[in-house]
């Protein structure tokens, strides 16, 4: 039998699962949604029934206050979502609570990876390789130029910069959900025990991570600190605050940024970053291609990102694939 996957359909607003009348990570409010992870472009406000991992639901509550009818999905539980469709949430290794969603219907198995990575991350459960007939994968870093270095190497560069500039603060721009906590946890893993200072926008998510058992050590708000406290300190802020007036309160900060895009020199220049840290919560080219090869699905659909190159790779490796044009996912924020 040739699989046709007619029951799952890419729509401009997201993936639509027809028999169960539900959407995956929809860009607009819908009556029934499955949410892969808590980043705002995937987990939007205003849905009715909202199925996600307990961590993702907690993140959404933190951000939006009340959410519709919350339906917690624990990793590995196979749950009926209506009309002969079953969903299993599996760890995606992207951020706390992030999930791939395995959908089963009419004898066909479909995995929607959501955003994912394959590297070890002390703040979330590792990606589970699971067999399927159709793999719907992200492609944020879907170009062969993107090969992320080991995170330990980047953390070592961060600590070396701090040692070289003892009178300056090191200001690290990092996405408030996931990246910031991962950088902090990796700093702790590297033996850095000093207080780490937080921009106000970082505090809630760090607390949420700590409440979920992720050890982040001594975190302090920049708001209450004196200039003297911050000389030689590591400060974490959202990327948007790097060039902002806010950073003037810090002693001559070294501007660092933790992002997979820091691989691209011209991006580094555009951002005015002095210390680019190539740290990403997305799969790089090798991870994307290895994952497709390991899972070996009958067909691969490629959602947001640099889909053309991954499509080409599939063609070169005689794998059936197509690119979906989904709107609304902001890969630049990584």
């Amino acid at each position, binding site marked *: 039998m040739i699989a046709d996957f007619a029951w799952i359909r890419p729509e401009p607003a997201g993936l639509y699962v027809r028999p169960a009348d539900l959407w995956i990570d929809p860009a607009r409010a819908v009556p029934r949604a499955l949410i892969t992870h808590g980043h705002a472009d995937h987990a939007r406000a205003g849905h009715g029934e909202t199925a996600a991992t307990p961590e993702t639901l907690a993140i959404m509550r933190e951000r939006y206050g009340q959410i519709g009818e919350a339906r917690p999905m624990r990793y590995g539980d196979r749950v009926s979502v209506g009309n002969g469709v079953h969903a299993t949430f599996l760890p995606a290794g992207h951020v706390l609570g992030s999930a791939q969603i395995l959908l089963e219907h009419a004898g066909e198995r479909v995995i929607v990876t959501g955003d994912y990575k394959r590297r070890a991350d002390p703040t979330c459960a590792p990606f589970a390789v699971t067999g399927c007939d159709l793999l719907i994968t992200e492609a944020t870093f879907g170009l*062969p130029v993107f090969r992320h270095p080991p995170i330990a190497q980047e953390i070592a560069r961060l600590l070396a910069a701090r040692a070289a500039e003892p009178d300056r603060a090191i200001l690290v721009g990092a996405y408030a959900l996931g990246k910031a906590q991962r950088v902090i946890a990796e700093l702790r893993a590297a033996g850095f025990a000093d207080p780490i200072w937080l921009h106000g926008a970082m505090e809630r998510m760090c607390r949420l991570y700590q409440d979920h058992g992720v050890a982040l050590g001594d975190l302090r708000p920049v708001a209450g600190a004196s200039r003297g406290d911050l000389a030689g300190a590591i400060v974490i802020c959202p990327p948007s605050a790097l060039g902002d007036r806010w950073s003037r309160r810090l002693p001559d900060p070294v501007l660092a940024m933790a992002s997979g895009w820091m691989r*691209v020199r*011209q991006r580094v220049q555009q951002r005015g970053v002095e210390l680019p840290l190539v740290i990403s919560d997305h799969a790089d080219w090798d991870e994307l291609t290895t994952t497709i090869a390991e899972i070996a699905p009958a067909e691969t659909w490629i959602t947001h990102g640099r889909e053309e190159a991954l499509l080409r790779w599939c063609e070169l490796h005689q794998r059936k694939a197509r690119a979906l044009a989904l709107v609304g996912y902001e890969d630049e924020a990584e």
Partner: protein
Amino acid sequence: MHHFTALLDTLLLTRSRHGKLAAIVRHLRTVPDPDRGWALAALTGGIDFPAIKAGVVRTLMAQRVDPVLWTLSRDYLGDTAETASLLWPDPPEPAGLPPLLAEVVETLGTATRANAAARLAGLLDRLDSDGRYALLKFATGALRVGVSARLAKLAFADAFGVPVDLVEEYWHGQSPPYAALFAWAVEGAPAPSAALVPLYRPFMLAHPLEDDQLDLETYAAEWKWDGIRVQIVHAAGQTRLFSRGGDDISAAFPDIAGALAHPAVIDGELLVRGDTQGPAIGGGAASFNALQQRLGRKTVSARMLAESPAFVRCYDLLGAEGEDLRPLPWQDRRARLEALMPRLDPARFDLSPLIVAESWDALAQLRAEARDAAIEGIMFKHRQSAYVAGRRAGLWYKWKRDALRIDCVLMYAQRGSGKRSSLYSDFTFGCWTADPDAGGELVPVGKAYFGFTDDELAMLDRHVRQHTVAKFGPVRETDKSLVFEVAFDSVHASRRHKSGVAMRFPRIARIRTDKPAHEADRLATLMAMIAD
């Protein structure tokens, strides 16, 4: 090589001019000869390996990487060297220690077209990705680290405590790795002599005149002819013709270079004989378009020499009989120039006349007529000012004729290079062949990549992404809904362009979100503005 790799990295990550300057100073003081000289050559655009062109890099990559993946990556990053440095496969075994720049120069400088790719590959195999990036930037030029040749020379002057004007001056008699220049600056060896070689002198430049009026007693007025600024130097039996950037263009203009046999340094405008410019005032010069046929050639045919004879309209005299006249006031240099003119070949050299106007209003009237006379505008020169390198406040001003303007429709956009590599910042726009309601179509008339603010660029980038109707590699075709008011200096007939016209200095003057696309201008309107 690793010093140079680190220098590039630092320059890229350092935003302030001061910080960049300090990094180059440090490099020049600490790195041994001749590598520091080669680094300086790279920063000032002095490296040229004839056998190593971007095509060699592409060829090499095509043997190692799928061409489609290469093209997608290259288009995304907007930089060939960076893409190649990231996609180059690490060799299974390290192929030796990283090379010094001197070895790179030796290896690539003696390469032939037949062995260039293999030699470059051998070097790439000995470097990590940062080193490969530095090597490719070094070998193919265009470092894009926000350092001008001027800043590099300033750093050289700072590093060794010598005056930058002398560095600029001696520079042109030297070639990389500048051993004599380092010997002079570092060890106090005698200066490279200016009398023995026809040296280039840094040009004096003008500020644009804004809304001010100048006192005509203090400033002399002169036409700004529409050719290219040149400097012609005769010394020790040799003659050189230099463009404003210091390039030696003697070979393309043997008619000029062969016509000066008098020890002199003349600043003037290079023009071609014709009757377009200044017909009423005995201008005797063809349009810029005519001159352009002769630019950018390595050699020139006898026919071209006969059909488009070049000449220099003299503005200034910087040296004569071995004497440096630059410290003299402009009016004294002008007198010396006027005295020299009778001794020059009148077919190749004439004097740029001064404009005598009774009042500012009379001058403004003359400027308003400049467009009809195909002249770029008016120059003002302080009568008491010495000839000094660069653009100094208060000494020289240019008062260009007003720009032409036309409303065009955005048709295609392409990502920029360098700083704008992720933004759609190169715009192709068109005019209607006829009334769009009567079957008129848009035809591209020009391309612009500046004139807008950063905020406007962000808006344009968004517009392009949201209004794309087709993609052709790196180019996006838009839905032809956005109108630009395009300002440009002049427009010329062109056989190379489908529209039949070519604009000079087009830039986006305004984004006309208020104007519907069908109200944009007709091609005929633009045709009517052709000046030649």
